[in-house]
């Protein structure tokens, strides 16, 4: 039963990712990418990671997708649609197949596949919170600093443009 669910989620995610690469219209690509994000969130939920799944939805679908869409609209929305396939498609295709072959061989040959899956820990949000505040507090603060720097940088860039005008 779980395998069927996972197969469906994986199929949807991969189809959305392929669509995000191959659609003509740029905004359609962005929306297909959003579907791929949602597929990932579904995969997290299927694995039982509630917090991560919902956070993925909140952050990626709710914020990153909108950011991508805004970026497209404010910069390239009026550009004519480009051709689907670039000129070096043969070389690119060969390299991709080679990399895929190497990866599949390596994963199949490794011991990870044969190891029994460990018992799924029942991770509650409380435990995540406690871990974040006790064991991982330094990475949390560093990430917070990084985000603050990004925010201030964005404000400064936007302000500077206004000043120039």
């Amino acid at each position, binding site marked *: 039963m779980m395998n069927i669910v996972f197969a469906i989620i994986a199929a949807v995610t991969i189809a959305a990712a392929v669509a995000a690469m191959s659609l003509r*219209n740029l905004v*359609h690509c962005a929306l297909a990418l959003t579907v791929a994000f949602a597929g990932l969130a579904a995969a997290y939920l299927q694995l039982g990671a509630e917090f991560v799944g919902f956070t993925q939805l909140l952050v990626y679908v709710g914020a990153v997708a909108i950011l991508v869409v805004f970026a497209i609209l404010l910069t390239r929305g009026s550009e004519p649609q480009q051709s689907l396939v670039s000129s070096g498609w043969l070389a690119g295709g060969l390299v991709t197949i080679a990399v895929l072959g190497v990866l599949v061989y390596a994963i199949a040959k490794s011991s990870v596949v044969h190891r029994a899956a460990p018992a799924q820990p029942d991770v509650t949000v409380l435990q995540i919170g406690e871990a974040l505040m006790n064991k991982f507090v330094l990475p949390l603060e560093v990430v917070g600093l990084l985000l603050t720097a990004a925010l201030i940088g964005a404000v400064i860039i936007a302000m500077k443009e206004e000043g120039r005008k």
Partner: protein
Amino acid sequence: MPDDLDQIFVTLNHLIRDLFPEPWQKVVSAVISIAGIIGVFASLFAVTTVFERKGLGRIQNRYGPNRVGPCGFLQPAADGIKALIKEDLVPRAADKVIHFLAPLMVVIPAFLVYAVLPIGRNMVLTDFDAGVLFFFAIGAATELSVFMAGWSSRNKYSLLGAMRAIAQMISYEIPLILSTVTVIMIVGSLSTTKIVDAQAGFHSIGLPNWFVFTPWGFAGFVLFMIAATAETNRSPFDLPEGESEIIAGYYIEYSGFKFALFFLGEYMGLFAISGLGITLFLGGWHAPLAILEFVPSWMWFFAKLLVLIFGFIWIRGTLPRLRMDQLMNFAWKFMLPMALINIISAAVWHFMLPERAPWERWLVGIALLVGPYLLLGRGLMEGKKLEKRTYRFAE
């Protein structure tokens, strides 16, 4: 007997569920609950449209709709039929797929979020461990649908309206979530049922244990409600849809049933966010006084919901529309600092234990909130001449 009435829907659900064989029972139970939720809240939507129009009418010295049905209460049926039989125009240059999907993407998240609202005792559809996070995550999908609606119409004004709407929704999402963080912090869990359970019981003086009766809870509730009004694009924050009257909002190119779906989605979002406000601050399905506990829990939930809806209608009838820059100023310069200070105030309240400092707690809590409120308020009103207008007539 009161317990029976309280659990009547649960009993009905079990009755129907037991008619089915064992492996189907979970699915059937879920389907029945879902059907119940959709049915109840969709009819609440219909009733709310009439109440709103009649209420606004009375506020504005006129009757509301009073021709269709007794006192106009069949008006939603007339509106529904009108929306269904109108021609569905899709502009020739519009992006057909996205144009079609946008109303669906408004309605589906709006209905999905009801899954975590506890409507009565034992009456929550799914008890996620991260229920509140689920609510906000699904609610964030609504913003994307606003953009889809605005962009797919290939109309510059529609796109502008959509951009403004998204900017408004993103700006107000932060105070919304920050004001719920205080509740989550105090309760220690993201699960809606646990939050409601934490508000059970009554104080010594008869006040219920709801969070709204604490200084930080009251401030949080006010912030939450203001942010909720902005999130659902309701007056006075209805610039995205009010602009339809002037130039174009993001659903100007929609007609007939798709338009009706947008309105359905908006009102469903309103009920859902009010429901979350009730769950977080107003004690969910708990009764306000100990002697009134015989009234079923779901009745209390809907009574509180109706009070909040009436509050929304009242505000809509009172306030003029906010301009875009006023809106943004308010969100970033007032509500965000207040929400952050609210978190500090809640933490201070939590650590000043009631046994050791009963009234100092209140003093510190109120002072911590009222001070910044006055200062920030003065900061907002600075530079604007807000006296009563005087006129000088030509001689």
